[in-house]
């Protein structure tokens, strides 16, 4: 009785509710669906229904886990290639976002204090229109006689891109690795810039003076002090770009082409073209596991950083 009262008191506390509600939400709308997907991936299909994984029949408790889908994924190299290709595009996008985002965030953090809110606003401005519309817009810009397309041809950038093997032919930019990566970099750049800016703006500028005082040129001070100290921002930004990029579906669908296999599209095909839900679920589960690895690394780093700050 006492225990029950204590439990009720604990639940009634405001803090519990504030922390608990989002977790309940995640439990109901992420954890449960994921478990259902996991279950489907190991279920046998009997006609149009999934057999129960756990069944009790004639006093026999049977656990039937069908692993053939997982085995199939390792055997058919389409999946392997698709995962690899997803990771590759996500990685390229992350690196490009970092290369573009870091200098951007750096100069934003070092800009006049009165100017910074406006610059920050500009970074977030794209979020004011629908993501889908913005990606669609690129289609128009990159097709033949689109503005960007014409500009790239005028600047003879298409020769360069063709030589790099990221467009199918001179003057054709759409449905290529180029258009895919362009779309992903464009979409995810703010997610790189914001954590980097947050990190760089907090940096103690006297450390740069100390570096300069000890004989470091501005360039050396940047590499030896600014970059190592912004490691947390780099990792956070990279995770925010890399993880959603792996599972990205809309951008490959709209801007990608036959060359650009990505796991999001394979998933869609398995679910809705092949109607093979167990297979589709298997692909999804493996993708989540794939994302867990960088997440775990990120978490470990965060924990370390917390420790250091104490």
């Amino acid at each position, binding site marked *: 009785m006492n225990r029950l009262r204590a439990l009720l008191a604990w639940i009634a506390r405001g803090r519990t509710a504030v922390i608990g509600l989002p977790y309940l939400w995640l439990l109901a709308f992420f954890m449960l669906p994921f478990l259902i997907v996991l279950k489907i991936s190991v279920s046998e299909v009997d006609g149009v229904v999934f057999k129960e994984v756990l069944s009790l029949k004639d006093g026999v408790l049977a656990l039937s886990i069908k692993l053939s889908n997982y085995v199939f994924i390792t055997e058919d190299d389409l999946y392997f290639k698709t995962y690899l290709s997803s990771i590759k595009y996500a990685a390229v996008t992350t690196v490009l976002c970092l290369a573009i985002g870091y200098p951007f965030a750096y100069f934003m953090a070092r800009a006049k204090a009165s100017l910074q809110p406006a610059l920050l606003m500009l970074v977030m401005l794209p979020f004011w229109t629908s993501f889908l519309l913005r990606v669609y817009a690129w289609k128009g810009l990159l097709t033949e006689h689109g503005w960007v397309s014409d500009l790239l041809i005028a600047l003879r950038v298409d020769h360069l891109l063709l030589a790099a093997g990221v467009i199918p032919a001179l003057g054709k930019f759409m449905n290529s690795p180029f258009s895919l990566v362009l779309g992903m970099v464009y979409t995810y750049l703010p997610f790189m810039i914001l954590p980097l800016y947050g990190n760089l703006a907090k940096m103690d500028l006297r*450390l740069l*003076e100390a570096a300069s*005082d*000890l*004989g*470091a040129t501005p360039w050396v001070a940047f590499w030896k002090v600014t970059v190592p100290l912004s490691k947390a921002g780099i990792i956070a930004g990279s995770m925010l770009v890399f993880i959603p990029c792996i599972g990205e579906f809309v951008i490959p669908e709209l801007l990608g082409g036959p060359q650009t296999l990505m796991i999001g599209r394979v998933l869609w095909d398995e679910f809705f073209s092949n109607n093979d839900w167990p297979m589709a679920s298997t692909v999804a589960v493996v993708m989540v596991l794939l994302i867990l690895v960088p997440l775990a690394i990120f978490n470990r780093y965060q924990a370390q950083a917390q420790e*250091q700050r104490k």
Partner: protein
Amino acid sequence: MSATPPAFLQIKDVVKDFGGGAVAVNHVSLEITKGEIFALLGSSGCGKTTLLRMLAGFETPTAGQILLNGQDLANIPTYDKPINMMFQSYALFPHLTVWENIAFGLRREGMAQDKITERVEAMLKLVQLGKLAKRKPHQLSGGQQQRVALARSLAKRPQLLLLDEPLGALDKKLREETQIELVNIIEEVGVTCVMVTHDQEEAMTMASRIAIMSEGKVLQVGAPADIYETPATRFVADFIGNVNLMDGTLAEDEADHCVIDCQDIKHYVGHGITGTAGMPVTVAVRPEKIHLSPHAPSDEDLAAGFNRAKGVVKNLSYFGSFTVYHLELPSGRMLKISQNNTQRHREHELTWGSEAWAHWSRQSQVVLTQ
């Protein structure tokens, strides 16, 4: 007779104007000799930190020249100057260990690895931090961080060491211990040192000479005792330590003495000043130079040239080793008097409301004309 060689560090008529009214550093000239510890002392906003930052090269003077060893510093970029600074609250690199922090400057010189190791080990030994070499700054106490900062700024063997509020981040007890230790290390290394502080005790204990700054100007330069005992202006007298300032007029001025007429007291001062009778002057007497007694001073004392004043003890603050009395004079003005508590039990103790006599020698006052 040969001309004296130019000072090691010459600050020649330096001005720093950030724009917007007040001039941060206003025509400052200083000469600092090799091997001395020189303190810039003043309250916040007096321009001392700006002056230090100009020496370090973080700011460029609007006008004037800074010469180190006869060489103009204006044309050398910060990272090439033979000057190192210990920053206020240290600015240690949080991502590097103690060892790497100290080695940072040496690496930038492109020194050979074995030389670096040798130098860093020597520095760690100097500041007694050998055991903590592998720690990160956040794992150290304030005092340890301060020593790492010192080792880092000394590692390159600079010709000039700059200290920005070197003990400001430490608590009082630790500060007192560290003052002496810091001076010992600086003297062991033999480096010329310019420090900035707002703490007069710190400046007095550490520095061989002090420059008092206010509103961008240097008011007085001298050894701690000179500044304390012979302040040049009313501001300096009031800024350093405690003081009784009494305004009066010059009544009599001779070669060997002068008389100053204040409201309650006629001051006989044991030296002459250059002035005309009737000019307004201020007499400064330090509280510890005044004796307080329940009895009137004897004729002997008066014959020996003591000044005196009678009043009532209005307030007293007991500090343990000494007590500060506030004596109210007939006009209502207060005289601060500090007495050492040399005995544990005193029979005729002065307390609130006691009538008492203050007397002080003719040599203990300073007459200030500005």
